[in-house]
């Protein structure tokens, strides 16, 4: 089913993306096309075959031992941003 521009705007808000009015118009068309394609699965889904589950059941013995291991250092974790005192700085608004 095709989406309205209002619905696309809500999705964009959920996805934390911004679109200009022009982009929204193009995107609404694109999404209609993609969703029409996604809708083709409805042609088909019948009964569920038994088994073949994707969950990987982890036995207790499979779990790794709860031992202290080397871990990430804060100076490494923050190395891709201008860190302040080992923290990620986030300001309420840009300066």
């Amino acid at each position, binding site marked *: 089913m095709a989406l309205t521009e209002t619905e696309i705007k809500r999705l*964009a808000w959920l996805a*934390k993306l911004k679109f200009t009015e022009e982009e929204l118009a193009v995107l609404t068309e694109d999404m209609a096309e993609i969703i029409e394609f996604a809708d083709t699965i409805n042609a088909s889904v019948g009964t569920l*075959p038994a088994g073949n589950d994707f969950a990987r059941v*982890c036995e207790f013995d499979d779990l790794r031992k709860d031992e202290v291991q080397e871990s990430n250092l804060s100076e490494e974790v923050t190395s891709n941003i201008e860190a302040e005192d080992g923290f990620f700085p986030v300001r309420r608004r840009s300066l």
Partner: protein
Amino acid sequence: MRDTISILSERLKKREISSVELTKAYIDAISSSDLNAYVHTSFDEALRQAEEADKRLKEGTATLLTGIPMSVKDNISTKGLETTCCSKMLEGYKPFYDATAYAKLRAEGAVLLGKNNMDEFAMGSTSETSYYGAPLNPRDKTRVTGGSSGGGAAAVAAHLAAYALGSDTGGSIRQPASFCGVVGLKPTYGAVSRYGLIAYGSSLDQIGPLANSVKDAAIVFDSIKGRDFRDQTSEETPYTVSDKLEGGGKGLKIGVAKEYFEGISPEMKGCLEGAIAFYEKEGAEIVPLSMPSLGLALPAYYIIACAEASSNLGRYDGIRFGHRAAKYESVDDMIARSRTEGFGKEVQRRIMLGTYVLSSGYYDAYYKKACTLRKQIVAAFDGLFSSCDVLLAPTSPNTAFPLNYTGQNRIEMYLSDICTVPVNIAGLPAISLPCGKDGKGLPVGMQLIGKKFDEATILRAAYTYERGERQEVEELEGGVL
């Protein structure tokens, strides 16, 4: 003869050439190449690694991969070397750890030349969505390499690396391998650790090799596979494959599902029929099969992959790493602006579709249904494999398209993944290898699909074909030296 790992390794061990000399030859080749196969290079570090490898070669502690120069796709983490997924979002990002698959190769003394071009966040079939511009196909520079591991396939085909690590979510190793005329192996889901592979569709993604021969792909796979406590979906793999290639075609049951051949050109069909005839001559049994649910794998794939992508790409908030907008009104606004500025259009579209299929009211209609369909496809493959060992299919319905090709709309472009995505949906191993050329002289890829954790059988089948049919052709092609 082409420069394969076995040949180069032999020459290194005999001291005919040092790893430093070999590395320099590749660096020269990369520096004078216009293919745009690499987006970040690490030549100084490569020469240091080569010196280290030469020491190991001298000491006699070398393996087949020691001192062999290789490259890694730009979505696989390499400590201290830019790993950007070819996106503005991750421009300048340097991981502080290595992906397990790459770390295993480094432990054997592999030499890293640099990072290969790709579609942004691996989303595409041509590598044209790359922030750094598309790589060019070395077989015809007016055409695409395929994608998303296009840079790696081009690098291997043009001898700008002896082999490359790629990743395959819906065909991203196999399809570029077929477009560039090299070998590409997508291992069983769980056979190779995904730790350090920047996630796209976590239940589909798998790291694997692009190489100049089937044996090379097997050697690299043996080195990178196995359980890793950092990836809970990885499994023990108590088997090796590179020593099991010689079995020949006799006794192999090769299934041919007719749906895979619908819509491919007569020339491509001819190439694949030639391969089928070859296997028959070698004593394999050809089993005609049918898989009616094949076409349904595509919409299921796009729903599942986009749903997972929208969750996985949620981490790019401009706070901990990646692009941060310079101007914003609030933290929320900063996150949205950073993402909008950082992601390209195709990535944004897929995040939007993923958000849609997971949103309240649509989850059951799309995501849940796609998961049900996924189980049906797994069951369909199980059915096929009850009467054959290997499935033979084309890798792609097309050979390489021209660059900036507008003859197809987006959906037609998605449809071109029809031959590769079912394998990811079911978590199976598959290999693509060259199988002749079409009328324009472009390589055609043959895909061999196997049972879970049975890489050995598809590699054996691929090796049998390569030995029988390709050898004479390949001897005409040069190498880096």
